[in-house]
């Protein structure tokens, strides 16, 4: 254990948007660590806490001061600096004056470039306070947030106005100034519940001092406390919590002293669709829903407050009132929307622009309908199912013109599906519309049925292909139409449902073969990477050299099967060796090209030549027998068996290289025949995968990791 003190920095400000807090806390931690590291100040672990009014960084065991050190300062070359008598020249005097020393203090110092005039001086190390005071303000001012603001005279610019800075190194205050605010040892507690300012004697007392000021400073503790209170609250309402991890994170960063207030609403609202209730509570009021053991909602909710008390019941009554009003609104929109059948409102989509160059959502819906039908047919679905897919695709976007989606945009698709269900329409069509935005991310579920998956892909594929053709190619961090996410969604469905389609099929279905190929190819590699494949494995399967984008024509489940098989190779040490051996085969074939060319000619002689090396005979036999077998296995897509078969080559190939000299200028015929064997060997080894890519895989993984 070091007895070096802990460094504590807290920046106090007006309420930071909850969504920005975790990132900001992490950024501040990195800034402090970087300043310490650049100054070579030893320190221990650094951690940070974020809250609505404060960002806090702790660094353990921080050295108080840089060591003093000797420094050599070089001036002009000695021949310029000293005259023949060895006296300093005017040049030397000028240098000395600039450095603040007497010319007599200059010595001659030998360097690699020859003798120079110079001197040594001792440099005092800076204290942690000096370093932070010097470097922190600019670094903090340069922090970036998704949305920034200016205040006061318009010059300071940060996420919100800064009000106090607490900076301590152990018990010592660290003096610095940020946005015109000087640091001290005083923090602030809860906005309403704290009794006066919070004095912090030393970093170890920070958490308890704030607790006394009614602030739970550690975000993990806040979250745990809220989670426990929610669970207890749900029990008291007679049910269990409808979990919502995202909402929990958000509310934990909205409050400093969390409390949970129980409320109820009129039971007749329970006739509304569950999604609408949960979303109304969550979206507008950041409230949690409660359900019974059957999973039906209860007429109650849990609100997270920035106080652990509600002495007059204001908080409960206020929330109940507002929740009631919101549910009233939701019911109003839902009932209004249902006055007309969903499908009848199709003409209203003509007025909703999808993209200036691509027309309205009605145009998009017509494209989706045709695309969904083609896709369903391509997948061999029976005619009635094809019809369901087409119908669902045609009506999937109509809910964009409903009041309910206007109020709750995140319920797109859901509302359409719920309306169709309420109208008593085909449940398969309703279900497909309901889920067609899924999957929204790598964690999200796929639409449950065939039709939902078809409509989802039709929607995304239409957007990707048409928007790319319209020139909306995502660049860097700019992807305003979410085309990358849409493409990942397409791949997830195709891979997980094992649809027998290729990238080329998808592009043909969307009628945009020209523009989309490069983008889809890139996204496919990215997608495979995200699913855990290494760059080498992807190269080995997609074989850019062998096939030059030929994989566009490959069925995607086949790509997946090959990748899964090649993925097993990682755990097989024999395979790394095989990859190296294959590269060696390659090298010999390249190097031996001249010898092999020269060796040609003596056809009869070659025909008469008989291999006598046992290792070569064994290898030739193996190549012959495995060649046909690997073809059969590949046809059956049993790529794991292919991998096993390939592994069987390790020993014979190794023995061959040990026992047999392939490139033998003395024996051109033997060279020719053995070269032919190696060419066949290479063909067999690389028929399903380009295993050469896996050579040195272990190294590469370290680099990319």
């Amino acid at each position: 254990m070091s007895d070096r003190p802990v460094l504590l920095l807290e920046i106090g400000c007006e309420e930071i948007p909850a969504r920005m807090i975790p990132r900001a806390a992490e950024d501040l931690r990195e800034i402090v660590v970087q300043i310490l590291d650049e100054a070579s100040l030893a320190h221990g672990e650094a951690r940070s806490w974020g809250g609505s009014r404060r960002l806090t960084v702790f660094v353990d065991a921080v050295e108080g001061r840089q060591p003093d050190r000797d420094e050599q300062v070089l001036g002009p070359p000695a021949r310029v600096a000293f005259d023949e008598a060895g006296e300093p020249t005017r040049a030397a005097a000028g240098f000395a004056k600039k450095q603040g020393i007497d010319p007599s203090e200059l010595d001659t110092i030998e360097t690699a470039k020859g003798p120079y005039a110079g001197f040594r001086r001792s440099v005092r190390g800076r204290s942690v306070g000096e370093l932070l005071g010097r470097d922190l303000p600019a670094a903090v001012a340069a922090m970036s947030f998704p949305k920034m603001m200016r205040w006061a005279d318009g010059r300071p610019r940060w996420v919100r106005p800064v009000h106090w800075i607490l900076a301590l190194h152990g018990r010592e205050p660290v003096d610095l100034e940020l946005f015109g605010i000087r640091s001290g040892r005083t923090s602030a507690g809860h906005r309403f519940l704290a009794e006066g300012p919070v004095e912090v004697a030393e970093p170890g007392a920070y958490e308890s001092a704030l607790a006394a000021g009614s602030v739970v400073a550690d975000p993990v503790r806040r979250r745990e406390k809220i989670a426990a209170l929610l669970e207890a609250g749900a029990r008291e309402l007679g049910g269990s919590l409808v979990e919502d991890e995202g909402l929990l994170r958000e509310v934990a960063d909205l409050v400093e002293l969390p409390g949970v207030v129980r409320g109820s609403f009129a039971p007749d609202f329970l006739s509304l669709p569950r999604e609408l209730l949960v979303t109304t509570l969550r979206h507008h009021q950041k409230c949690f829903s409660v359900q019974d053991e059957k999973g039906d909602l209860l007429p109650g909710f849990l609100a997270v407050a920035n106080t652990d008390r509600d002495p007059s019941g204001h908080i409960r009554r206020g929330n109940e009132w507002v929740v009631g009003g919101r549910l009233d609104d939701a019911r109003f929109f839902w009932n209004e929307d249902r006055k007309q059948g969903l499908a009848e409102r199709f003409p209203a989509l003509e007025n909703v622009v999808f993209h200036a160059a691509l027309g309205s959502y009605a145009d998009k819906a017509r494209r989706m309908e045709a695309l969904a039908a083609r896709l369903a047919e391509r997948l061999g679905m029976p005619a009635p199912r094809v019809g369901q897919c087409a119908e669902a695709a045609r009506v999937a976007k109509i809910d964009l013109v409903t009041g309910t989606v206007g109020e709750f945009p995140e319920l797109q698709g859901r509302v359409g599906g719920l309306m169709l269900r309420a109208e008593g329409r085909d449940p398969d069509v309703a279900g497909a519309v309901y889920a067609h935005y899924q999957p929204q991310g790598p964690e999200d579920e796929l639409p449950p049925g065939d039709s939902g998956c078809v409509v989802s892909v039709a929607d995304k594929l239409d957007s990707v292909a048409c928007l790319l053709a319209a020139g909306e190619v995502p660049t860097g961090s700019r992807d305003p139409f979410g085309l990358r996410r849409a493409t990942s969604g397409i791949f997830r469905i195709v891979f997980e449902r094992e649809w027998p389609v290729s990238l080329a099929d998808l592009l043909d279905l969307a009628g945009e073969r020209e523009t989309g190929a490069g983008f889809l190819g890139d996204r496919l590699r990215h997608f495979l990477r995200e699913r855990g494949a290494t760059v080498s494995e992807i190269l080995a399967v997609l074989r850019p050299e062998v096939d030059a984008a030929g994989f566009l024509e490959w069925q995607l489940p086949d790509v997946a099967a090959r990748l899964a098989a090649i993925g097993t190779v990682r755990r097989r040490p024999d395979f790394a060796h095989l990859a190296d051996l294959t590269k060696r085969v390659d090298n010999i074939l390249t190097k031996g090209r001249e010898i092999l060319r020269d060796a040609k000619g003596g056809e009869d002689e070659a025909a008469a030549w008989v291999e006598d090396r046992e290792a070569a005979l064994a290898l030739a036999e193996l190549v012959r027998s495995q060649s046909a077998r690997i073809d059969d296995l590949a046809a059956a897509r049993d790529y794991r068996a292919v991998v096993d078969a390939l592994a069987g080559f390790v020993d014979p190939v190794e023995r061959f290289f040990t026992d047999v000299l392939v490139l033998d200028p003395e024996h051109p015929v033997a060279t020719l025949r053995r070269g032919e064997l190696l060419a066949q060997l290479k063909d067999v080894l690389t028929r399903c995968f380009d295993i050469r890519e896996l050579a040195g895989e272990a190294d590469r993984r370290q680099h990319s990791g």
Partner: protein
Amino acid sequence: MNFQEVLLGIQQFWAGRGCVLQQPYDLEIGAGTMHPDTFFRVLGPEPWNVAYCQPSRRPVDGRYAENPMRVYKHYQFQVILKPAPLDVQQRYLDSLRAFGVDPREHDIRFEEDNWEAPTLGAAGVGWQVVMDGMEISQFTYFQQVGGLELSPVSVELTYGIERICMFLSDIRNIFDLPWNDEVTYGQVRRAEEVEHSAYSFEKADVGFHRELFERWAVEAGRLLDAGGAGAPPLILPAYEATLKCSHVFNVLDARGAFSVTERAAHIQRIRRLACRCAEAYLERRRDAARSGEETTP
């Protein structure tokens, strides 16, 4: 506290803290921000503190007096402090105490809400102030108005007077609020709500309003162009014509008269006029400053 007591209380509070107590602007406008004493006064360097109540019309929010909370017209109380004092959050909370709100008995939160008024070329950063789950105020550091970056930065505090009053008196229907001890809000305002809702949603003549929009827009442009012919632009009349466009636009919007692109084009047109007004105002202020005239009290 009844409605007029709340209104008197908040006026008293801010008048006592150095604000010019202004009166509502006498045109149909949708928010206190559109009052020239906000729109123009936040431009340029002169300090300015003002408070006023602005009846604000939002045709799409009309509910025929049938919704307990949404109305065609509501009373916004607006405060501008320029430059924004560093303790402005504290001052705001003190103003709530003036209504008898003890923050220790409530859950008051500042939740991110970045206000934007596209028709005014205005944008700010700030919060909605949420009390016990209810949004009671908008708290905005103005960053831009009329398309111009602001420096110094003004803060705008906007109170929904009806909501605060409902909260304080535990009354759940806006029309049941006591206006004073004898008359309710409903008695004062119900007919206006019913008729204007009907007008905005059903009866407003779309052709007539389109024509009004066009003519007010042309008028605003003409008044701004006056400067080109050697005469100075008539900035305030041009701005009023722009506000007319804005209200007419809101009526047309409530009537569902616009397609998406048409709607965006109209917003754009109002915005351009508002930005030109702001630019002309700053230009004139600079000229005045050069000739040593006094521009602000």
